[in-house]
């Protein structure tokens, strides 16, 4: 939910509750005051009536014009002396309408006989008054609420505008570009502080990115060049005619070591580049299709090892990623499945919209399968590989929101790739 929407909602809810409470309280206060007034007048009339009885000791309904106003009824039997006020509805004398009345009931003795006397007052005018006041109040409160609501909406929209501007700029910010993060100046201290902090962070990130990028480029050049020299010199050296067996052995060792070093260096630099997210270009790639196209590259070795390849590619696995990385990714997985396979073994490729699985037969696994994704973890210490292949696969997966799992079950090794399940509200 957006910030402005959220504050609007909270404001609306709170003001609704407050205005409702104020409205109800106001209504009760007015009602109480009107009743109080009516009852005071009824009490005055009651006293007038009693003093009239006291003087004349008789009552004639005719002495009052207004019929329903005073009702005198003789009471037989027990009565109490309580004075009771209550609301009642009485039919109007002239038409069929029923009107609300406030009535006071009390007992008094007229001519030696106890009577119950009820004196009434029409409430119709008072009710009309209450209605009018209430209507006016609801209207005014409603108007007040709407205008306050609109006002606070505009106000918070205006107040938060620098924040939204900053947010947009940060979203557009690309740390791989040379352009610095530009943020609008705000007169609100908190926002300008936020902008300062963000600018500092962005500058630092940009600086780190560039220096790491330069480092990988330089390291690549500075290490590969001497290695190229070693390689070249070894090649020249082996051309000599009179090499003893010992010489050949040493030179072979030097050659292998330098080749391994070169591969190690390339692998580590590639990892650093992926980690630093230097592969910025991306396109929509169907990994299933790419996997299918990759197989012919390995045709020779598959035939040589007499590996049986079983394909069960049903759907396309689409992803938006760098083509160069997708290539490296599948290359590593496939060559892994071939390198660690048995001769006359089997490779099974399965894919669907939601996953890609590459399984191969192989030797027993001694290490924990998940640990094979760590750098320099390899099953056999003496093997030619430098132990970075799966670490690179894992790093690529991490960068593109893929989950990769290595499972091992009864000599079948499988690598399962699928989109990462995002946790929480995303």
């Amino acid at each position: 939910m957006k910030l402005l929407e959220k504050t609007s909602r909270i404001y609306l809810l709170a003001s609704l509750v407050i205005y409702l409470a104020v409205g109800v309280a106001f209504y009760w206060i007015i009602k109480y005051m009107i009743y109080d007034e009516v009852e005071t007048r009824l009490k005055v009339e009651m006293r007038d009536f009693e003093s009239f009885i006291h003087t004349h000791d008789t009552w004639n309904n005719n002495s009052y014009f207004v019929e329903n106003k005073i009702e005198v009824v003789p009471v037989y039997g027990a009565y109490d002396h309580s004075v009771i006020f209550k609301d009642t509805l009485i039919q109007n004398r002239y038409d069929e309408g029923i009107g609300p009345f406030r009535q006071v009931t009390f007992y008094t003795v007229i001519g030696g006989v106890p009577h119950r006397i009820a004196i009434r007052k029409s409430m119709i005018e008072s009710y009309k008054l209450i209605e009018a006041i209430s209507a006016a109040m609801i209207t005014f409160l409603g108007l007040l609420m709407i205008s306050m609501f609109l006002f606070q909406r505009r106000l918070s929209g205006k107040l938060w505008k620098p924040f939204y501007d900053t947010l947009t700029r940060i979203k557009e910010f690309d740390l791989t570009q040379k352009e610095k993060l530009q943020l609008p100046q705000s007169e609100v201290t908190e926002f300008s502080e936020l902008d300062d902090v963000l600018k500092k962070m962005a500058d630092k990130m940009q600086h780190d990115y560039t220096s790491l990028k330069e480092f990988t480029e330089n390291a690549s050049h500075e290490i590969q060049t001497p290695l190229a020299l070693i390689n070249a010199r070894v090649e020249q050296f082996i051309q000599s005619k009179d090499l003893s067996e010992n010489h050949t052995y040493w030179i072979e060792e030097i050659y292998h070591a330098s080749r391994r070093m070169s591969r190690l260096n390339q692998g580590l630099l590639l990892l650093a580049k992926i980690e630093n997210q230097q592969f910025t270009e991306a396109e929509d790639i169907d990994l299933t299709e790419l996997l299918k196209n990759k197989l012919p590259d390995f045709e020779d070795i598959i035939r040589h090892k007499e590996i049986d390849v079983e394909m069960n590619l049903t759907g396309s696995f689409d992803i938006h990623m760098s083509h160069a990385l997708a290539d490296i990714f599948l290359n590593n997985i496939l060559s892994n499945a071939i390198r660690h396979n048995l001769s006359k073994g089997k490779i099974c490729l399965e894919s669907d919209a939601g996953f890609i699985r590459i399984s191969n037969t192989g030797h027993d696994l001694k290490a924990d399968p998940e640990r094979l994704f760590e750098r320099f973890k390899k099953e056999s210490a003496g093997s030619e590989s430098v132990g970075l292949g799966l670490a690179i696969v894992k790093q690529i997966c991490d960068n593109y929101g893929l989950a990769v799992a290595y499972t091992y079950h009864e000599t079948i090794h499988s690598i399962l790739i699928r989109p990462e399940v995002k946790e929480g509200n995303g």
Partner: protein
Amino acid sequence: MKILVVEDEKGLAESIVDYLSKEGFTCEVANTFWQADEKVSLYQYDCTIVDLTLPDGEGFGIIETLKKIAATTGIIIISARNTLEDKIKGLEIGSDDYMTKPFHLSELNARVKSLIRRRNFGGNNDMIWREITVQLQARKVFVNERETLLSRKEYDLLLYFLSNIDVALTKESIAEHLWGDHMDSADSLDMVYSHIKNLRRKILERGGKDYIQSIYGIGYKFTAS
């Protein structure tokens, strides 16, 4: 055939020159950008080998100058940078090949020769060595005028040998030549062995001599001696 080697690492430049000179090329070296720039504008070369990272400039600049002056010169980039962007840029501005350091001298040699062949004859000539004739255009191989059918890899292997006659080739360089550098495993060395066995057998079948000599611990040599 004249070749210019633009490489700031003196030892490496020396190795390249040494290796290519033995193959019959006349080589010159430039260690800096300006040296290379000067040489390129003064003399004519059949092929130029350019390193991209030079102390006083980018190798790309030399390629651009070369393309303006003499468009017929073949250009091979040798660089420690192996990013796709660099490779694409190199090809876009007119280089013919891109090799990532470290590379094999034998591979560089094969590529220089193939480039010069393409430049000079449009790939339309035959490669003849003793009783072996290779029709490059048709990708056909004749031994004693009788055609022998080679697989794609065997053909590539033979061509690689013919480009590096009398030179000791490591098994690794052969494997890399045939399958690229992503095929690094003990299996690929086995495969080299079986391809060589087949090639040797096919040449012998047509009455050719056995020119493939194996060198213990290192690799093979294609030689008449």
